[in-house]
């Protein structure tokens, strides 16, 4: 029996700068019985362009997305933000396609489509979870990521105070309004540090890059780790920190 044909859409950021998250997605989804593919023609969903005011430049990217991911049962992204861009914005840029409608953020795919909460992961660390804005408010993933984390053996989940406050990333907002973004980040880092967690996790590498970048500057001793990497980690093949 072969599982659903799942196309990975790691997003251009993860493909380029966070390959470990992509590898974790492959391990996790294959472990859960999916037939995983990575269509090499994919590049970017166009979110940076669209959100900065360049909708016209994002339009061809939206069209290309539909072409590249056509024909798979599902498309899964380790990003609430990019999955939100595809599902909510792409239909406003070009005729919608089955690929767009079958695009899921990782936690949605696991819980809603595969119907699993316990993915058989093992991660013996103290972890706090930051719900990213787009996964929370655009996609409405709710507490799916938290249910997944609660089922991970060895993992101690500590609640993050003021969890639903934005980390201040916001794409080019972090540059155009760098000072305000930093002020938002400062409060987020304080909340993360207050938990005493060793690991801060989220469903978006962009936000983790913001939070992690700030924490590493402070030598805070808290590591950003994408949700996919935690869920991929097992007793036999445990997560290892990359330098």
């Amino acid at each position, binding site marked *: 029996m072969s599982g659903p044909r799942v196309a990975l859409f790691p997003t251009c950021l993860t493909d380029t700068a966070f390959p470990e998250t992509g590898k974790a997605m492959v391990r996790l989804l294959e472990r859960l019985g999916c037939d995983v593919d990575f269509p090499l023609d994919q590049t970017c969903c166009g979110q940076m362009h669209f959100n900065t005011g360049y909708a016209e430049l994002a339009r061809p*990217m939206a069209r290309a997305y539909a072409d590249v991911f056509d024909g798979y049962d599902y498309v899964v992204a380790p990003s609430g933000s990019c999955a939100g861009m595809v599902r909510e914005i792409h239909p406003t840029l070009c005729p919608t396609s089955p690929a767009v409608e079958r695009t899921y953020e990782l936690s949605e795919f696991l819980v809603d489509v595969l119907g699993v909460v316990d993915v058989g992961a093992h991660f013996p660390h103290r972890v706090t979870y930051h719900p990213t804005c787009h996964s929370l408010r655009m996609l409405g993933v709710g507490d799916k990521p938290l249910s997944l984390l609660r089922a991970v053996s060895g993992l101690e989940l500590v609640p993050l105070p003021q969890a639903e406050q934005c980390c201040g990333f916001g794409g080019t907002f972090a*540059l155009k309004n760098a000072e305000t973004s930093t002020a938002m980040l400062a409060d987020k880092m304080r909340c993360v540090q207050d938990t005493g967690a060793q690991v801060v996790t989220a469903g978006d590498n962009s936000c983790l890059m913001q939070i992690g970048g700030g924490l590493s500057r402070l030598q805070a001793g808290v590591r950003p780790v994408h949700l996919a990497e935690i869920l991929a980690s097992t007793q036999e093949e445990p997560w290892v920190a990359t330098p």
Partner: protein
Amino acid sequence: MGRNPVTWLGSPTFPDAARRSLGDTQLRGNLRKATTTIRGKRESAVAELDDWEQLRRAGEAVKDDVLANLDTYLERLEAAVSERGGVVHWARDAEEANRIVLDLVRQEDADEVVKVKSMATAEIGLNEALADGGVDAIETDLAEVIVQLGEDRPSHILVPAIHRNRAEIKEIFAQMPDPPDSDDPRALAEAARKYLRRKFLSAKVAISGANFGVADTGSIVVVESEGNGRMCLTLPETLITVMGVEKVLPRWQDLEVFLQLLPRSSTAERMNPYTSIWSGVTPGDGPQKFHLVLLDNGRTSTLADEVGRQALRCIRCSACLNVCPVYERTGGQAYGSVYPGPIGAILAPQLAGDLHDEQAASLPYASSLCGACYEVCPVRINIPEVLTHLRAEVVEAKGKRTPEAMAMSAAAWVFGSRRRYEAAQKAGSLTRLLARGGNLSSLPWPGSKWTDTRDAPVVPKESFRTWWRRNRG
């Protein structure tokens, strides 16, 4: 036509203004405390109603109907108000509205007027226009008194002095004839009461805004918390109301929806303490002369924009300000307009109508697009959608030759083909573009904006796709 005063002349762009307020620790503390408190209260007030989502949708539907049939409802309102003894005036812009009001005040031989808290009159700079005409406009809402006596600018729609704390207010009130002897809220309120009582009793003319105007009955509605508005609306002989055209509601029953949505969203109350409703003039009761000035000031041109027009649904509850992470840090004055926060970021540039203006053009970017505003808005204004829409208009206004536009085109060109994308990935330039915010030499923002305060990710030894090709390809 003069410059639209909805954005303050000479205000710096949002990032520049924000930089200044971020350094103000007093302001940051005051705002954090105030917004955190009201946020929690709103959440519980809203949670009490199981039909909150339906109410929001009903509010949205009524307002959309109003916007689609604005001319019909306004004519109906005009007829109903006139029939009940009021006089209706139409003002195309701020200048015209101010002139109408000044003339009306002069007709009454008044050199002082009392004012009910009103966003519309703040938007058109009425107080300044009256002062130029030799008329003193006395604000009577407690927070507006603090702003006015402090020669300050408002920083919040509902609580314009939210950036002030008790100690600062005591300082400002020291100029009252009977100044407060401590910064105890009771003492502050008592001092204000004495100061205002004298004004209420001597004023011949009052000026107000309107929360709603009911077309069917010609009734104008003002909701408030203090009762000072009620004093203005009942004591003087003449009442002049300036109302934005979009505030009209078709039917009396529509108030049922909005009088639930508004107080819970704005002050987290089930019902606001004072709701004043009047229809024209009632002989022997209240003001015997009533003028309604219907204000356009950029509203019909906003209406022409299919995406942007939803901003006109706004009922000025300020819930979006209270939940906004940007507003919480920068405060309202950084927006350079009477309309701050998320609604200001979409409404002020549209009413001002000039995206070539640097300050107005910076407002749609004053957001991380986190969506908290949309989640709470009682009339479901999709603020993030309007923000990105206005950003596209800013980009268009600026043209294709800006460094940013050229960098964006270059990036789109890279993303346009797998070969170019992979080449950029191998060269490491894509990591910098995506992760450090564009250290590509052609990009406008120095990568240092990122690395000033955060470490950038290390460029990995191989991309995910290289790994995939090596192992699975």
